[in-house]
């Protein structure tokens, strides 16, 4: 699982000094982004703390599979995402209201993809929303849809980087993002309506 972002498994020779140097230079600058990603995945501060710690310790242990000059942030995000799926998702405190597979199957159906999907939401209404309301709408999405929006719109990863982080084809990144945004618009619409911003 902990392979370099390149397709092949590469093992690089690192001296002890170089391990610390690469860790500090390439990995530590991303710790705030990693913490926020962990928090938005787990929705729990203690779990986010543990997840970030575990990820950085794994990154250090497996640093020889990190190829210098490649995208360290994407490499770290991939480890964090895999740790979340393997170690945290099962014990997540987030109530699993929606079965993700079921949601994706529904949205993947031909009927859904052929239908012009619109939510009656105006840009002006979204502009009225404060950060907490936008965050709550995002947090209300099933975790896999939430993840693509975080990676693309908050962290600014390219589709290609997202495909590698999530181990899915670029076409799936594109379609999952599209569906995630439609779901988010529904949530934002609910917030805007409850606040009276859409009247």
């Amino acid at each position: 699982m902990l392979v370099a972002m390149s397709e092949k498994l590469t093992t690089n020779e690192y001296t002890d000094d170089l391990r610390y140097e690469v860790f500090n230079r390439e990995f530590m600058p991303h710790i705030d982004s990693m913490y926020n990603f962990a928090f938005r995945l787990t929705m729990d501060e203690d779990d986010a703390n543990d997840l970030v710690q575990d990820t950085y310790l794994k990154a250090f242990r497996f640093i020889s599979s990190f190829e210098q000059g490649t995208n360290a942030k994407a490499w770290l995000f991939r480890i964090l995402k895999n740790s979340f799926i393997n170690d945290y998702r099962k014990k997540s405190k987030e109530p699993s209201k929606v079965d993700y597979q079921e949601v994706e199957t529904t949205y993947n159906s031909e009927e859904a993809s052929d239908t012009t999907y619109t939510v009656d939401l105006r840009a002006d209404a979204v502009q009225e929303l404060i950060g907490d309301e936008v965050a709550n709408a995002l947090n209300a999405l099933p975790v896999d849809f939430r993840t693509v929006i975080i990676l693309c719109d908050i962290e600014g990863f390219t589709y290609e980087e997202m495909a590698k982080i999530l181990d899915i084809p670029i076409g799936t990144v594109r379609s999952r993002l599209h569906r995630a945004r439609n779901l988010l618009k529904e949530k934002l619409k609910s917030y805007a309506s409850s606040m009276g911003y859409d009247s």
Partner: protein
Amino acid sequence: MNASLTTPSVEEGAEKQNMKHTCEHHAECMKIIQSILDDEATEAEKDHFRENMDKCIPCIESYRLEKCIKDSLNLKIEKKPCPQSILNTIISKINS
């Protein structure tokens, strides 16, 4: 987003009466709008955007909404600093 792709505005318009009020391929246009905003559009998608997006009111409205949501996610959601205690624990564990 590519600077050469200017944001159309519904308000600009003595030509408004000549604009499309319905879009017969809006689902496809939504995918293109998303690609443009994510800076992932192909040349063909950019061409389609340039040629059509200032003529179609539903697409202009959708572009504004999608851009506003993307900007809100990026700019309005609080980004917390990683607690110092986590940094300290990581550093002490890798040095032990």
